[in-house]
């Protein structure tokens, strides 16, 4: 297991409400190896994004969130790690791409300044000049040729697709070992999304970056990921290599998910089923727990 970058074991999460606790995640096991692209697929509200937030340690500090289980990054138990340790991991070893690229950048700073700040986290006291040269190279890698103009622009002056590419460049600026992409480009239109995902795919392959790709778009997942985890109502119901999941679907929820993919050729709305008792039967692990508890 020395090859494992991220290892999540028996992770469960619940939120303490005023009168009751709400279980959000139940016994999640997930691991990502070096340079591997892993997708986490599930419907809205199934608990995909909270997993990302837990990995980054954003949720643990929140009032009412009860996190159990272990999250190991390169063998370091994140729960036990000190605040400083986590802060030094974030941005250098782990980085993240968000759903909405435009709102994820501070509107008062120019792209060049944002790059300077991010690169400063990787290499301390990097000069602005050097940072801008590095930034131009990074922008070139995401197919932005007019990097001079982009670096001089504010985030709101660029288009969504452009910002998305800037986001990717920013996220990969410090050559992180793990990139968490939380539904990247959901706020963008399909063509732009496809373009940027292709770019991201090539880049992470080149840098050998492991990716946790969180999405509900099965088409994208199929092209992007090596391995897929399917999550339903806070439980991982099926996992396996992309080809096995797509060609040899075992779990009824995964099947329903596949059927729900809209087809261009179909004439009517697809029949999306949700909440079948069958879905709650995990295809694997959860051995130690009774179903339905």
């Amino acid at each position, binding site marked *: 297991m020395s090859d494992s970058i991220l290892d999540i074991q028996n992770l469960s999460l619940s939120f303490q409400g005023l009168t009751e606790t709400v279980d959000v995640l139940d016994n999640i096991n997930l691991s990502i190896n070096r340079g591997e692209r892993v997708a986490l697929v599930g419907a809205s509200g199934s608990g995909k994004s909270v997993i990302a937030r837990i990995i980054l340690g954003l949720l643990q500090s929140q009032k009412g969130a009860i996190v159990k289980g272990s999250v190991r990054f390169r063998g370091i138990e994140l729960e036990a790690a000190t605040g400083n340790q986590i802060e030094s991991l974030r*941005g250098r070893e782990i980085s993240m791409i968000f759903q909405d690229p435009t709102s994820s950048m501070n509107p008062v700073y120019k792209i060049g300044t944002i790059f300077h700040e991010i690169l400063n*986290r990787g290499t301390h006291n990097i000069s602005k000049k050097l940072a801008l040269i590095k930034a131009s190279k990074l922008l070139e890698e995401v197919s932005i040729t007019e990097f001079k103009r982009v670096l001089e622009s504010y985030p709101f002056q660029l288009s969504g697709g452009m910002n998305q590419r800037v986001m990717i460049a920013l996220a990969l600026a410090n050559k992180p070992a793990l990139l968490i992409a939380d539904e990247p480009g959901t706020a963008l239109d399909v063509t732009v999304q496809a373009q940027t995902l292709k770019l991201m795919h090539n880049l992470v392959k080149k840098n050998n970056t492991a990716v946790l790709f969180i999405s509900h778009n099965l088409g994208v997942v199929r092209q992007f990921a090596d391995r897929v985890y399917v999550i339903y109502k806070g439980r991982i119901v099926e996992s396996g290599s992309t080809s096995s999941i797509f060609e040899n679907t075992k779990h009824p929820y995964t099947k329903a998910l596949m059927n729900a993919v809209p087809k261009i050729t179909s004439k009517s709305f697809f029949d999306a089923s949700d909440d079948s008792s069958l879905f709650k039967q995990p295809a694997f692990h959860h051995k130690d727990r009774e179903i339905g508890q």
Partner: protein
Amino acid sequence: MKLKIKILLANPLSVMGLLLISLVFGSAIFADFITPFPLHKGAVVDFSNFNQAPNLTNIMGTDLVGRDLFTRIIYAFRISIMLGVVVLIISVPIGVFMGLLAGYSGGKLDFVLMRITDVFLSIPPLVLAMAVMGLLEPTLLNGMLAVTAMWWPWYTRLIYNLTRSEKEEGYVVAAEVVGASRWHVMFREILPNCTHAIITKMTLDFGFVILIVSSLSFLGLGVQAPTPDLGSMVAEGARYLPDSWWLTVFPGLAILIIVFGFNLVGDALRDMMDTDS
């Protein structure tokens, strides 16, 4: 930016505000050169022509000890501006820092800081200032202190609310994700997004600070004689109304010009910043 200035200049009211402010600042800076009797700012007595109505030598008349009122008003501008600047320079950073800290930290710190702020906000400003002045000696410095003590909570409240909403923005989460420290997030990410509100409020407040300080002086708790101050000038003259009307009318007009000017510019700035989105 050029466009913004164009918008500002397109509104006649903002231009008027700018003109009024420049008039006040300009005359305060060059007071020594434009006033006819610069010596009259201090304790000068000229009983031979006391309480004169406006005439050619003393365009705004003279006060009860024969000093030129115009000269004293121009010098009073200096004091007023200095008071406004000092009060804001001290109270704004305190208020902003408290607001940022409470808004971003949340939890117990939020509760404690905001309740302290609420206590200050619940006391009528003039009463609080009067209490402070009553406890301490009524000097210029204590006047500033008193007004400062009542001014910062408004900024805390403003920045607190802004921080609470900015905190949920994507860029704040993004900064936290790349490992930015809480101070970095507070001062480099959230604060720059609040500056427009701070600047606008400061501009509007400048006039109000001057007004409050004048009120204190009017009550005899602010700037003490012989330093020229608009509030105390009005107070002195009030006893001789309506016969010696110039003693109150001109200083009163001077207060009006300052407050009105800053209000106009503050409104203009607010409109200007609003077009951001």
